[in-house]
């Protein structure tokens, strides 16, 4: 490892850090004697950076020499930055060296668009091929699909990678056109649909031939920047829910806008990133994926944005008091999942246990139900809690959103 590699690594890691996704989940591959690596289905975090984000994969760009000039991107052509590109061997040595020391779970490879999309995509495929074929690497690989790359290259990348992703970045096409005049949504959706087709063909093929090569077993994901443009939360959630249903994405990531190019007047002049909004969007995303909510239930025309002081599930429950209170002994899983303070695990525990015992408030609390929130929405035997009907939504909102004033620890001396 030379000084030059170190410099490249620093430049290309700093250039890749604004990509949020770093998960190594969704693909399970056991090791093989004599080969390096395996993939754990649930993903493993190997470290946590100073911003609290997990580091699971070696996240680097292949190159940051970009031909585009997108307003929101740090690597845009008009920025005066040190530029660098890896060679295939450098990247392979780094990945394997880090992997053998258990620093990482695999590689997250992305790139700026060098020359043409096909040229860049081919370079990425070369790295993957070297890792998978020459070094028989069985760890996790996430590869970014370059918008506009040809179908054949995307298919090849899918044969080597576990997860693929194409970033939408800006949720609406008009705003994308404004901030990145050289891009459009169809260049993003086309590769997404290629990947989906590949996934479906592969599913069919594997039904017939057990040893058919797997195509992107961990599916595909995408990312949207939040707060750089004027989309409301309802638009974002509607788009996410379409993406989960249409191209069957595994994950949509939300990235609170960090103003990296302050000089560009097309971008809002933010002093802080909208981190709270990002958090609420992730909560809403979970409701879409695991809690059987529809996008229009979480945010609609009457409530176009998520409330920042209470979570989206509580917000829905306060707007729908007629749904509650529920009896935990008889409610089905779908109903239980709508109770604030109850998650997937505690709902499942309730269902497993309720044939064997009576669920009192103490039992529920011991099972991991957050009674502070759930108390208003559950009808427990022998409990003297107010339900949402007795207390009223306004009271519940106040009780659950307000932070208590700090307690006085001593009396004033005078």
């Amino acid at each position: 490892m030379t000084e030059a590699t170190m410099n490249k690594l620093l430049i290309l890691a700093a250039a890749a850090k604004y990509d949020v996704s770093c998960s190594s989940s969704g693909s399970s591959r056991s090791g093989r004697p004599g080969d390096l690596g395996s993939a754990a289905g649930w993903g493993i975090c190997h470290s946590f950076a100073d911003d609290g984000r997990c580091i699971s994969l070696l996240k680097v760009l292949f190159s940051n020499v970009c031909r585009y000039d997108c307003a929101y991107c740090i690597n845009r052509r008009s920025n005066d930055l040190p530029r660098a590109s890896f060679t295939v061997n450098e990247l392979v040595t780094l990945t394997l060296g880090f992997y053998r020391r258990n620093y990482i779970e695999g590689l997250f490879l992305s790139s700026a668009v060098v020359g043409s999309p096909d040229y860049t995509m081919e370079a990425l495929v070369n790295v993957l091929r070297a890792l998978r074929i020459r070094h028989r690497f069985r760890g996790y690989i996430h590869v970014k699909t370059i918008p506009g790359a040809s179908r054949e290259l995307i298919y090849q990348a899918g044969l080597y990678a576990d997860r693929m992703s194409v970033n939408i970045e800006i949720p609406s096409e008009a705003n994308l056109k404004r901030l990145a005049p050289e891009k459009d949504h169809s260049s993003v959706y086309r590769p997404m649909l290629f990947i989906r087709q590949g996934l479906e063909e592969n599913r069919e093929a594997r039904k017939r031939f057990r040893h058919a090569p797997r195509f992107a077993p961990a599916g595909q994901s995408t990312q949207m920047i939040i707060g750089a443009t004027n989309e409301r939360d309802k638009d974002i959630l509607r788009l996410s829910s379409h993406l989960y249903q249409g191209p069957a994405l595994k994950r949509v990531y939300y990235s609170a806008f960090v103003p990296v190019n302050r000089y560009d007047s097309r971008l809002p002049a933010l002093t802080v990133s909208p981190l709270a909004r990002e958090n609420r969007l992730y909560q809403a995303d979970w409701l879409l994926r695991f809690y059987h909510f529809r996008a229009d239930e979480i945010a609609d025309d009457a409530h176009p944005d998520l409330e920042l002081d209470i979570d989206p599930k509580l917000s829905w429950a306060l707007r729908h008091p007629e749904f509650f209170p529920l009896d935990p002994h008889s409610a089905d899983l779908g109903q239980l999942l709508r109770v604030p303070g109850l998650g997937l695990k505690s709902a499942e525990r309730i269902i497993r246990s309720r044939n064997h015992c009576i669920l009192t408030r103490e039992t529920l609390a011991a099972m991991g139900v957050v009674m502070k929130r759930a108390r208003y929405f559950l009808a427990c035997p022998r409990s003297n809690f107010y339900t949402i009907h007795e207390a009223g939504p306004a009271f519940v909102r106040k009780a659950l959103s307000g932070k208590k004033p700090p307690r006085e620890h001593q009396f004033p001396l005078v």
Partner: protein
Amino acid sequence: MIVFFYDKTFGGLLSALFDAYTLKRFPALLLGEGEIPPLHAQINHTVSSTEEKAERVFRAVRNKLDRAALKAVKYAWFSESTGSDTLIFRLLRKALESPRVLPLNYGDSDTRAIMRLSRQVSCEKEKMMGFLRFQETAQGIYCATMAPRYNILPLLIPHCRNRFSDQQWIIHDVPRGFGFYFTGETILPVTLEKSSLPGGRLDEALLTEKEKSFSALWKEYYKALAIKERSNPRLQRRCMPKRFWTYLPEKQG
């Protein structure tokens, strides 16, 4: 109060169950041999642990617990926390006396306590899967030291063997003073001498040149990846508690 003394092995625990059914007396407390019984202990019985007894009890228990519960019992055992053996004893007794496979009932406080212990051990194991760090020695052996809260090294070995099957490695548990060596084919028990582990970490003189450059690269990469505008040290410490930092190269110097 009935107290049983046993040899603090899992086989001993199963033998204690066997003895309890033979004597028709069930202990309220299990203690290791030589430990001091509480003041009002009436019956003190010392369990003679044999493989035959353990085998018989295990066969009976296996039919009465499902896979999740068996795993929970195993993990709770590896927590090595005080009272975990008494808990396991009570749960296994409930299982033996249940007419069918014991349902996982979270309304039962013993089940809850076992599941809680098992979850803590399992979390520690998963954390260690991520935070384990190998260092390459001059002989080409990848060596890792760690100090987990629970005795999770035996649970970690299958994962490492599966993943790093083409390299030789040693994983050493510093506070418990034992480790395993994978020769490339088999796993052998091994202990590292204290003198080669100054401050719990492997002596730098034993490492290759390459190792230093890789850990330097990793450190720089780690620094470059953080977004300054989103700095969140509390979240970082919650996800990666400081007790792991001693063994992480990115947190050294």
